């Protein structure tokens, strides 16, 4: 009798394991399905080289910035100030690039890190929910960005435009992704991030330092977005007050489409960044080809977003749905 019960328990666990693996693969299948469906609907237009190149040109900044937010979301936090950080860091890069481009990149990274640290400080030190802190700083940084550009856009050194090459942007994005992958998978930090996301109190008892890790995660995420601002500027050349506007929502949508659990924890996978940003990019690029009216594109995007999320979300990871 006991043996039968153990067997059925084993069978249940196996079934659960298979289900979990399938669920983890769902965003990937969703991405493939979207590409196939949109390829058919556009008569193969979206998989032409020119369109793929265009699609990729929009994905670099999103993918780089998403790497930082991925870490924040893994610890269970949220960051709505990413667009504003990108805008302000881009301005810093533009200013300093006139003296030296490398110095400009460093300045943008430092500026991004400082803004991220500001978020982290308020979140950790004053125990304010990350989404509330970052909504406040979204306004704060955006306000600075708009104020600085009151009299017109801030131009970068003209030399940066020469860097607007596909190979260069691919290389930069790949470097960020590889470093991110190594940190998440092969260092203690990656383990800590998932442990804190899964259960902060338990993580603290097992030797992690949640407050320090969370502060660092916000700082590093800001630094990564600071670096993304460099890629942003080499594409656009000058920065207005609305630079990076809505980036935070795009990142959120992209990561969720990639299967990122909103509560973070052990089920966050690095592939969420790549699959998510590519899925978002396919949607952004393909919908105008099929539906010429902007409102229809957005309607379809919203419906697809909800369907994908409903199908891929891991309810077991969400003990309380907020």
């Amino acid at each position, binding site marked *: 009798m006991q043996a039968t019960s153990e067997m059925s328990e084993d069978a249940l666990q196996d079934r659960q394991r298979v289900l979990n693996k399938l669920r983890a693969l769902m965003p990937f299948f969703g991405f493939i399905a979207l590409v196939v469906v949109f390829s058919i609907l556009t008569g193969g237009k979206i998989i032409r080289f020119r369109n793929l190149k265009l699609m990729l040109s929009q994905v670099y900044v999103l993918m780089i910035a998403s790497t930082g937010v991925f870490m924040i979301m893994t610890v*269970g*936090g*949220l960051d709505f100030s990413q667009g504003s950080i990108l805008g302000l860091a881009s301005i810093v890069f533009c200013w300093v690039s006139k003296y030296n481009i490398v110095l400009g990149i460093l300045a943008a990274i430092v500026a991004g890190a400082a803004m991220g640290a500001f978020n982290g400080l*308020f*979140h950790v030190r*004053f*125990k*304010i*929910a*990350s*989404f*509330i*802190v970052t*909504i*406040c*700083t*979204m*306004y*704060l*940084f*955006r*306000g*600075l960005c*708009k*104020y600085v*550009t*009151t009299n017109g856009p801030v131009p970068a050194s003209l030399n940066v435009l020469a860097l607007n090459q596909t190979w260069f942007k691919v290389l930069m994005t790949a470097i960020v992704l590889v470093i991110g992958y190594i940190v998440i998978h092969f260092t203690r930090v990656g383990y800590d991030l998932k442990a804190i996301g899964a259960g*902060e*109190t338990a993580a603290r008892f097992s030797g992690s330092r949640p407050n320090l890790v969370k502060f660092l995660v916000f700082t590093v995420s800001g630094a990564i977005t600071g670096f993304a601002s460099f890629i942003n500027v080499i594409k656009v050349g000058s920065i207005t*007050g609305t630079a990076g506007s*809505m980036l935070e*929502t795009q990142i*959120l*949508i992209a990561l*969720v489409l990639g299967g990122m659990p*909103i*509560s973070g924890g052990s089920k966050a996978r690095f592939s969420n960044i790549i699959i998510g940003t590519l899925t978002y990019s396919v949607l952004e690029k393909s919908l105008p080809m099929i539906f010429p*009216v*902007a*409102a*229809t*594109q*957005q*309607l379809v*995007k*919203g*419906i697809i*977003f*909800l369907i994908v*999320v*409903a199908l891929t*979300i891991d*309810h077991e990871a*969400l003990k*309380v*749905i*907020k």
Partner: protein
Amino acid sequence: MNETITKFKSSKYFGITVLVAMAVLFWGIFKILSPSNFGSSKLLRDYLQTSIQYAVGGCGFYFIVVMGLFDFSIGANIVLSSLVGVLLSRQFGYYGLILGCLVCGTMIGVFNGFLYSKLRIPSMIVTVGLMLILESVANYVVAFDKSGFPGKLTDAGILAFNHAPWNYVVAIIAFLLAAFFLRYTRIGTYCNAIGSNEYVAKNMGINVEKYKFIAFVLLHFFVGIMALLTVSYGRGMLAVTGMSSMDRNFKPLMGTFFGVAFKKYGCPITAIVVGEFIITLIFNGLVALNIPTTINDFVTGAVLLIIVTLTNRGRVGSVVK
């Protein structure tokens, strides 16, 4: 004596005193800095009229924010409900405008609440999708308007809500309703209980899903009222795409932060109303000082952060995500 002071410090009168003192302080600062352009009795009335529309939305937001939920589709609801109101006003005048805004707003709340509870997706995620959908639906609604002035309230006969006394009447009814729901019905008690600890609330027998649904409906009902005031003040509404409606979420949210912060004194609705007034005072004070309006967002963020930091801290050692 000490006991009396302690008792007073935790009473709603203390909360109201602090709020009024803050309003007076900001008024005083800007009045001193810009005596001729700021803070006359006429201007104060204008500031109040501006702030009440956001305060109405803030009252609605309170029901879900106090439970730890969020809704990104508020702005999209304001746009859509306003456009439905304008469209119906062409046929039915005031009845069309009022019912269009209120019924459309509430129906969106029912829809949001239903999807949130059935799909079991976090509110922050589900409402991003709904925001995209509602924004696009608003564009279809405005296409039905064949008046030649799509989305505009052209009939001067139905502009009563953009000035006193009817804007005050609408807002006061909304504030009283919100206070009534919070103070005299189970909804307010249960919303607070769920926000404090959802597990415990569930174990106490509270139907958490039901009350979250009700909170969404109430939120969007109040957003419908806000839409009525917003469309009247602006004499129309523009349909938007590309998530631009999100900006409309945050002004009501600021008032809600005041409400949450002063919840402990038992006067959240008063805090929302006075809080929105304080924020309007600050914006107008900056304008009076000839500071470029581009700095408004900075001030918004700074004020919000200060309020939240001073009043909304978690306990040491508590888990805050």
